[in-house]
């Protein structure tokens, strides 16, 4: 009996993977998103090994030059190669995106799991907390907390993470609510396994696919939030620069050097679009019925 169940589970799993692969192969946008993200991530990792691309080499004579063979995307107000600056800016944007995503996933999963698993008064308190956090417009909250903390890369990551975990907590909580009723969880509780182990080993694995889907959307949101904050001058500070802070500088030179505004903006759009698309495709894995065109329950 158990063997049979295992086999059917395995088959089921393969079917889900097949669905995802099918989706990637037949959905041009998804294919594009995947390839684009791989390329951007590889470039961000390996750009440091290209010595000719130095984002900080100042050349005041050639400042605010338009695109040319030597500087593919021109130079900025201090004569720095803009192409190199954009590539290095992408590193910061992606690092903020990924680390802020991890922060908010950790908060969201902990609160959601504890809330859903224990229920009762703990659940009520935590869910009211979620309500309160969600009642404050993000842009206001992030800036308020941002001015209390010292400015810097890690405070931005922390602040973004701290104020975007609420939807994930709700999602995880509802998954945990159904997962804790499963027989294997009930059994584990019955034989006296402690709550922490049950949550970690029996409840969380079944929530995992949902978390992955939420994570891709969280990266996209974090990159958007970071770019808005940096654009308002409240995010990444000089000498570091992200796509958002590059755009902030570009605004000052908009009339003279419009090309400075194009590239970071297009890259933000493509990156956020791709992470969102990836999330859509991964939903096929989590909720196979989406692909079959059935209504979400």
């Amino acid at each position, binding site marked *: 009996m158990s063997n049979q169940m295992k086999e059917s589970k395995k088959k089921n799993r393969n079917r889900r993977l097949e669905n995802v692969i099918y989706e990637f192969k037949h959905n041009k*946008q998804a294919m594009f998103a995947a390839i684009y993200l791989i390329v951007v991530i590889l470039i961000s990792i390996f750009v440091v090994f290209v010595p000719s691309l130095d984002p900080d080499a100042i050349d005041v004579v050639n400042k605010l030059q338009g695109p040319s063979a030597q500087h593919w995307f021109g130079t900025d107000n201090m004569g720095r190669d803009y192409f190199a600056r954009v590539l290095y800016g992408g590193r910061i944007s992606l690092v903020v995106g990924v680390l802020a995503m991890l922060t908010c996933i950790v908060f969201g999963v902990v609160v959601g799991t504890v809330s859903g698993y224990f229920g009762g008064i703990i659940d009520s308190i935590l869910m009211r907390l979620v309500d309160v956090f969600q009642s404050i417009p993000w842009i206001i909250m992030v800036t308020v907390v941002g001015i209390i903390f010292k400015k810097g890369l890690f405070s931005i990551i922390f602040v973004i993470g701290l104020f975007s975990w609420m939807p994930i907590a709700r999602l995880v909580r509802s998954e945990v609510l159904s997962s804790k009723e499963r027989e294997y969880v009930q059994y584990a509780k019955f034989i006296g396994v402690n709550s922490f182990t049950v949550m970690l080993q029996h409840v969380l694995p079944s929530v995992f696919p949902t978390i992955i889907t939420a994570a891709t959307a969280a990266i996209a949101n974090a990159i*958007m939030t970071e770019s808005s904050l940096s654009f308002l001058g409240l995010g990444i500070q000089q000498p570091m620069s992200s796509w958002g802070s590059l755009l902030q500088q570009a605004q000052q030179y908009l009339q003279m050097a419009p090309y400075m505004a194009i590239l970071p903006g297009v890259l933000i759009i493509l990156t956020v679009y791709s992470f969102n698309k990836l999330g859509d495709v991964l939903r096929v894995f989590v909720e196979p019925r989406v692909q079959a065109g059935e209504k979400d329950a």
Partner: protein
Amino acid sequence: MLKYIIKRIAQAIPLLILITVICFVLINMAPYDAVDAITTPDMSAAEIEARREAYGLNDPVYVQYLRWLNNILHGNFGYSLLSHTSIKYDLAIRIPNTIKLVLPSYATAYLLSIVLGLLAGSNKNKWADKIIDGLCSIGISMPTFWFSMILMYIFGFVLKILPIMGMHTVGDNSIGDFLLHFILPYVTLTVGFLPDLTRFVRGSTIGQFKEDYVTVQQAFGAKKVQILFHHVVRNVMIPLVTKLGMALPQLVTGAVITETVFSWPGIGNYFVKAVQGLDYPIVMAILVLSSTLVILGNLLSDILYCVVDPRIKSMQ
């Protein structure tokens, strides 16, 4: 229904109180001394101490909280650290400016999203849907400040037909001048609000087309247009009504970035300047104001939902 509404209001009140407590804690965590707002640099230490006593800054924290809450309820938000002007007075000038910008933009986006969403949802996977949905995906990924920079460049610098800063040319208060300044931020905001709303309408239209009543109508040979306008539209509009309530806080915080880019003299611009100048009382006043509006907006949206769809209260 009245019972449900009262119950819902009763739920919102503790949340409001909790929010004000959090705001107050944040204000006290902020690295500034409240006495700075009411003193001038040439006062002696004894004078400052006397002021501190007079304004009750030496009282226990809960007394200060209650007094602060009382002030807020009377619309008294305190004074700016930098300009020493009354925040209440500043807000009274700036809120109408923001509303003048956000309200028309949201209304346009709302109406447009109904048209586009119905069009896309009723033609699922056909070319109209693909274009609209594709544009929405891109729109959601596009930072509004980037879009506004592109508009500024094209219409302000290349074509030179539209002004890119402020709400009026100095000394010119005519409607025409206002409209010229209004166009670019208005378009930016409309484009900013549109994708999310359109997706929402599209999603619920697709959902409605799967309902049994549509199948029944199709079985009776009703045309698609008839089904769409006689039956589907009504059901799509119901959840859309709730979006109206949730949009209430947008009247204050909906245009923070757009206002900053276009130097529009509204709340968003005021807020960002206050944050950059570390003018804490202003920041906190807007924090309280906007979070209160969110709770009121959610309350309003639940009540609206209950009014348009009486089934809701039976689910409670």
